[in-house]
């Protein structure tokens, strides 16, 4: 043994090992952490393995134990799978398998988010996002509690349990094929491993959709508003219904009689409509997008060129990559359906089959309220309810945190629901008050049953049967058949409320402020083959405000108004007409608002720059097309007018307040042009009028307009800078700054990161003639060319012809990207 070389060998071994170790851990970088660089950059194991060859073929043969029979999957040129299985178990098994194969990380991430488990993989904070806070919000809201309740309901129904089980088996069959070289890209980036799928995860995902669609409320903000506004002011700022409303069920329709007494409780005036007290509002870190909405309509054969009904739907949601939707065709001897579904849940959600088509828009009803709970002492063991102390149940939610010890949320459960806010959960004003969250989505429900039955539906009665059990999130359920039926019903289980109930935080001492049960299904009105030849919904109020139950919520109304106006005048309708309508950028709100602005603007007071932009606005064609600068001027001007009008009143409170709707201001000015209640700026000695405000608001935006002009960002599409963000909001994995038309109040509701998430037009001719597109791609892998391939067609409003083919047609299909053969082993 020679000493010197030995020592050198030990030193070199030390260096080698330290290199390996330091490249095998995550290093801090900025506000987050690097991947394990050695692993991540390894060509044999790391991200390089996710770089899919652009000419990849998706052929393969799989022998799997859990299959009941054999199946074949054909991928078309857009990578849409056409699944032909011997039986339904295998069809849903394969749907799970394919969701996992193309979207596993997304499914994992979304359900972790829903279940308050992001800290487990992201750490308590990363890149400026406080993930622990996000997790606490979801846990305290009762998301896991809600999903567990639904799981019980789902598993009590043998039919849906079988579907869920088959789906989970399929997802897990794929997960079991993975090793560290084949993990999806984001697992490598964030350094964690996939875990097996469960039915609870599917239930969590559906509860996440409930939050997104039936989770919007401003109860704390509105409660705060009571402390600074009088009853009259409040009613003017947040009116119930608007003048230009065109409800889903036309105004003349006879309304149901009130089934339950809807008189507010005797104590309402003293305890509830008080407009005095201040409550500690805790702003939740997550709020569903107020704009979550959708359009859907169907036209009767009498109005179409080919004499077949046409059904159209475009749900508006946050646009992420990977996309929320995954396109698929499922075919068995008992099922033949095409459409989009959610990676994370079985079945086709929006689509069509051999006989009919269906689609949804959100009902926007407020089904989430808060009750103030009085506890006996700080242990919260007992709370006051109906004149006596009641025992509190507790639910411990353990939040695991990466690289740290876990956090436990000790949540008090009351008759109202989980106590979301108490002294242990951020309450900046330290009121020590406790608020329980009462949310329709907490109850066990089986939404999948509706989608599953719709996938199988043949006629109007099947539709009624399919939707009859549906509870939450409430939807406007559109349906059309080859035989020419068109029908629309707002379906869901909606709490029966008296006027104003649940707008504010309610007293939880006794039953007097409880929901009066649920609105009977017979009072959820239906529109079946109406004389006008079409049915439509776009999140506006379902009925006129004389409906006997309170329709609390926020209802955009301009899209619905315009859709009805246009459909009314259309005849000999073709599929192309419907595509144009879905991508229509006409701004009907601006049509109503522009005359008001131009009436009051004093051109003599404008300098040459201001005049120039006013001319842009004047000559604007009222379309929010990508190249229209007038749309930018209008958008900024109206926002500026809102601020000029309301900010003095709203600055009375530094706590969160609800902001009035754009419509409210327009209605207010039109109705009361000389003395609008909020026109005067209370911070100045002069008495401002509406006309003053309109001029002030315009002058305020001139600098911004000039600046935008200089940057060549005056055109609407360049100003709006639309995009689709990756779920981790990493710019390099997102598509950003895309020029696109559309916007708020526009049928093409594409705002910056939110808009039509799936556009579908189905002509119910003998051989179904369907078109669709979503802004993303079938693969969730950022290393695949299929990751974002639809976006370039989506932006200009193009559609793909949907290939609803039988197996023989697919066998002969020229542009196949591959064929997966599943056989039972």
């Amino acid at each position, binding site marked *: 043994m020679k000493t010197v070389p030995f020592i050198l060998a030990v030193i*070199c071994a030390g260096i*080698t090992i330290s290199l390996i170790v330091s490249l095998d851990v995550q290093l801090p970088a900025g506000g987050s952490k690097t991947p394990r660089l050695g692993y991540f950059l*390894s*060509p*044999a194991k790391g991200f*390089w393995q996710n770089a899919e060859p652009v*000419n990849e073929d998706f052929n393969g043969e799989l022998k799997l134990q859990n299959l009941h029979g054999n199946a074949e999957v054909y991928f078309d040129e857009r990578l849409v799978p056409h699944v032909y299985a011997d039986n339904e178990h295998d069809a849903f098994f394969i749907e799970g398998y394919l969701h996992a194969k193309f979207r596993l990380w997304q499914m994992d991430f979304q359900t972790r988010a829903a279940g308050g488990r992001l800290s487990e993989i992201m750490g308590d904070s990363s890149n400026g996002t406080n993930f622990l806070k996000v997790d606490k919000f979801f846990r305290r809201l009762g998301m896991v509690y809600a999903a567990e309740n639904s799981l019980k309901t789902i598993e009590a129904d043998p039919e849906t349990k079988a579907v869920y089980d088959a789906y989970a088996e399929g997802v897990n069959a794929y997960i079991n094929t993975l090793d560290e070289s084949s993990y999806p890209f984001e697992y490598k980036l964030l350094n964690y491993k996939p875990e097996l799928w469960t039915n609870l995860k599917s239930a969590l995902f559906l509860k996440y959709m409930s939050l997104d669609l039936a989770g919007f409320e401003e109860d704390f903000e509105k409660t705060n508003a009571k402390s600074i506004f009088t009853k009259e002011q409040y009613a003017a700022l947040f009116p119930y219904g608007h003048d230009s409303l065109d409800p889903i069920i036309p105004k003349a329709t006879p309304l149901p009689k009130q089934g339950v007494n809807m008189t507010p409780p005797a104590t309402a005036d003293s305890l509830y409509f008080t407009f005095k007290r201040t409550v500690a509002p805790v702003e939740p870190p997550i709020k569903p997008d107020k704009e979550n909405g959708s359009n859907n309509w169907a036209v009767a054969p009498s109005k179409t060129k080919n004499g077949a009904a046409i059904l159209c739907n475009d749900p508006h949601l946050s646009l992420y990559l990977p996309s929320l939707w995954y396109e698929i065709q499922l075919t068995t001897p008992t099922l033949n359906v095409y459409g989009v579904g959610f990676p994370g849940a079985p079945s086709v959600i929006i689509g069509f089959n051999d006989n009919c088509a269906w689609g949804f828009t959100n009902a926007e009803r407020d089904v989430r309220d808060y009750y103030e709970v009085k506890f006996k002492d700080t242990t919260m063991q007992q709370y006051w309810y109906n004149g006596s102390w009641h025992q509190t149940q507790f639910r411990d939610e353990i939040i695991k945190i990466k690289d740290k010890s876990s956090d436990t949320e000790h949540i008090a459960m009351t008759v109202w629901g989980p106590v979301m806010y108490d002294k242990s959960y951020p309450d900046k004003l330290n009121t020590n008050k406790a608020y329980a969250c009462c949310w329709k989505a907490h109850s066990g429900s089986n939404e999948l049953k509706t989608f599953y039955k719709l996938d199988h539906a043949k006629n109007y009665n099947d539709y009624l049967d399919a939707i009859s059990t549906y509870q939450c999130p409430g939807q406007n359920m559109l349906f059309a058949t080859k035989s020419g039926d068109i029908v629309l019903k707002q379906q869901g289980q909606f709490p029966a409320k008296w006027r104003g109930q649940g707008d504010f935080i309610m007293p939880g001492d006794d039953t007097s402020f409880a929901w009066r049960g649920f609105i009977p299904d017979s009072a959820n009105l239906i529109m079946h083959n109406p004389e006008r030849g079409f049915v439509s919904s776009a999140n506006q109020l379902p009925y006129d405000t004389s409906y006997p139950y309170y329709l609390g919520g926020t209802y955009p109304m301009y899209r619905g108004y315009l859709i009805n106006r246009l459909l009314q005048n259309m005849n000999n309708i073709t599929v192309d007409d419907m595509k144009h309508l879905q991508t229509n950028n006409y701004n009907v709100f601006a049509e109503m608002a522009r005359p008001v602005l131009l009436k009051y603007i004093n051109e003599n007071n404008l300098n040459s720059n201001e005049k120039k932009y006013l001319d842009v606005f004047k000559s604007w064609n009222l379309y929010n097309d990508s190249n229209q600068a007038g749309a930018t001027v209008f958008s900024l001007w109206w926002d500026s007018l809102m601020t000029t009008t309301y900010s003095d009143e709203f600055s009375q409170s530094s706590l969160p307040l609800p902001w009035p709707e754009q419509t409210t201001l327009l209605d207010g000015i039109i109705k009361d042009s000389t003395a609008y209640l909020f026109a005067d700026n209370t911070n100045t000695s002069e008495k401002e009028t509406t006309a003053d405000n309109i001029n002030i608001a315009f002058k305020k935006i001139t600098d911004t307009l000039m600046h935008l002009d200089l940057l060549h960002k005056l055109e609407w599409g360049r100003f709006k800078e639309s995009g689709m963000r990756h779920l981790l909001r990493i710019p390099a994995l997102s598509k950003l700054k895309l020029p696109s038309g559309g916007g708020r109040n526009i049928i093409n509701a594409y705002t910056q990161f939110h808009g039509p998430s799936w556009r579908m037009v189905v002509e119910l001719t003998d051989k179904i003639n369907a078109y669709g597109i979503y802004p993303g791609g079938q693969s969730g892998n950022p290393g695949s060319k299929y990751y974002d391939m639809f976006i370039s067609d989506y932006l200009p409003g193009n559609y793909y012809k949907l290939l609803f083919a039988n197996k023989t047609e697919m066998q002969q299909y020229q542009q196949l990207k591959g064929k997966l053969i599943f056989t039972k082993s």
Partner: protein
Amino acid sequence: MKFLTTIILTALLGYAATLYSAWWSFAITSLIVAVAIHQKPAKAFAAGFIALALLHGIHAMIINSANDGILAQRVANVLPLGGSSFILVLITAFIGGVISGFAALTGSFARSAAR
């Protein structure tokens, strides 16, 4: 000839090792090759380095080319390397090379020590 043989053997074994074992398992094969085929320390390091740098570099380039550079470009922005997939390939090659080089150096010294 010995040098070239070492490079080829190191690369082949390194490739095989990482197919079936951890990303860093090539360090062990590089060490074994350096013990088995004894060279002076500088040459051993160079052979180890070149073998893995070439292996990783070429492997990454082949993948990248089949992928039209889609993912490498994204990753080169995430990391951040200004979107240059070329630099990404270089770093990939360098990491393999430097670990392999030191492993081979260890092997060379160990063989000398044992003699």
